[in-house]
């Protein structure tokens, strides 16, 4: 007869395994929500079909696949319990999905991922650092954001992007462009644009006015970096951007220490 402690240990390992998979799933779900928000992808479906297309292409599908695998493992673990297998599978699947989604969205609302991204930018985040740098800070093609610096004419205006560059926004005809939140674009408006870039010209398909607090996190980080380092030339490659953010964050730390 096997001693009781073996079954207790078995239950403990089983419980810890389930908790670990649950935590990983919640982390992945909250991280997906965070990077969609941080990169400004939340706004895309509002632009209609062109926006939805970019949204689908830019969606972190590998993370979604990881979540599906984690959910399947969690479901197998949960099925060991009578309360799960005695009821139709759809109930336990829905239960797991709802709990994971609610906890995931709650975690996304906390500063956990923002702080982790900042630590990753300062190379202070082991293991998960590359994940944050590759997903959190990767820009989405065909999305541009900036502050209107000049209205050239009825169909053209200039924006200053977070990286300090100026772009000329061209609206082929006003009916071809979906303008969200009050059509009239004015100087100093913060706007998000989806369109095709050619040099410093962007042919817009959609324009959305943003409130100050709606600026995507990555753009905020770029903007803060530029404001600190006005004289430093802006760069275009992803790695150079990361280096600049990194330098800037380290400078911020140094300044804070000196002030203290």
């Amino acid at each position: 007869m096997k001693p009781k402690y073996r079954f207790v240990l078995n239950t403990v390992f089983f419980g810890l395994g389930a908790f670990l998979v649950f935590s990983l799933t919640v982390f992945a779900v909250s991280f997906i929500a965070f990077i969609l928000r941080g990169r400004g992808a939340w706004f895309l479906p509002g632009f209609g079909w062109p926006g939805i297309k970019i949204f689908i292409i830019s969606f972190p599908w590998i993370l979604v696949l990881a979540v599906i695998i984690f959910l399947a493992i969690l479901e197998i673990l949960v099925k060991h319990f009578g309360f799960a297998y005695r009821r139709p599978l759809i109930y336990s699947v829905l239960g797991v999905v709802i709990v994971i989604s609610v906890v995931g969205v709650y975690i996304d609302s906390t500063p956990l991922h923002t702080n982790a991204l900042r630590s990753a930018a300062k190379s202070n985040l082991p293991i998960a650092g590359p994940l944050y740098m590759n997903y959190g800070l990767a820009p989405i093609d065909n999305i541009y954001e900036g502050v209107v610096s000049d209205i050239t004419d009825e169909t053209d205006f200039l924006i200053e992007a977070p990286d300090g560059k100026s772009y000329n926004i061209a609206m082929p005809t006003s009916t071809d462009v979906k303008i969200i939140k009050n059509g009239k674009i004015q100087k100093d408006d913060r706007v998000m644009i989806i369109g095709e870039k050619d040099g410093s010209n962007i042919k817009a398909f959609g324009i959305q006015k943003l409130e100050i607090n709606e600026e995507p996190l990555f753009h905020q980080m770029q903007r803060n970096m530029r404001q600190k380092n006005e004289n430093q030339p802006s760069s275009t490659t992803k790695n150079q951007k990361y280096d600049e953010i990194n330098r800037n964050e380290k400078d911020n730390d140094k300044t804070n220490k000196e002030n203290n």
Partner: protein
Amino acid sequence: MNQLDEKNQKTDEEIARLVQSGDIGAFGALMNRYQIKLLRYGHKFLSSDKGAMEDAVQETFLKAYQNIRDFDVSRKFSSWIYRIAHNEFINILKRKHQETSSFFSTDILFPHPAAKEKTDQPAEDNLTRAMIDKCFDQLPIKYREPLLLYYFEQLSYEEIADVLRIPVSTVGVRLKRGKEASRIIYDKLKYNHE
């Protein structure tokens, strides 16, 4: 009243508790109660191989004894030991590359408002039992076990759900469909015979 009579008056769960607390001899009472039942279950399940079936039943008792401390006495002992036996029989089928019920089946996915089988008609139950017995080997594996556990081993829906690890409503669906399938096979056999 001697010790054996005392144990015979206890429930399975009470005897299991005695074994858990160190009364190893009490396990014999459980073996006496389940030996014939498990041999009958195995005989139906593995009708083609009597030797393997007897070995599997022995293995079931061995595993039940080894793991008795894992048994939750607030649950039914019958479900627990039939579950061990089910796993043993399935392992034999797998070793022989014979058909086993698949890990996933669509009937476990959604709820089914299936009515429970009527248990207050013994005459009808006897006829059903005889019909299932005749065509048992030709039934799809996923219907065989619920029919066997319900009509021959007299387990409840909840106990069958615990043995097979499927939803209680799915037990009802499989019993209903299994009965329909046996009726079709039975009629065909009767027709061929005539």
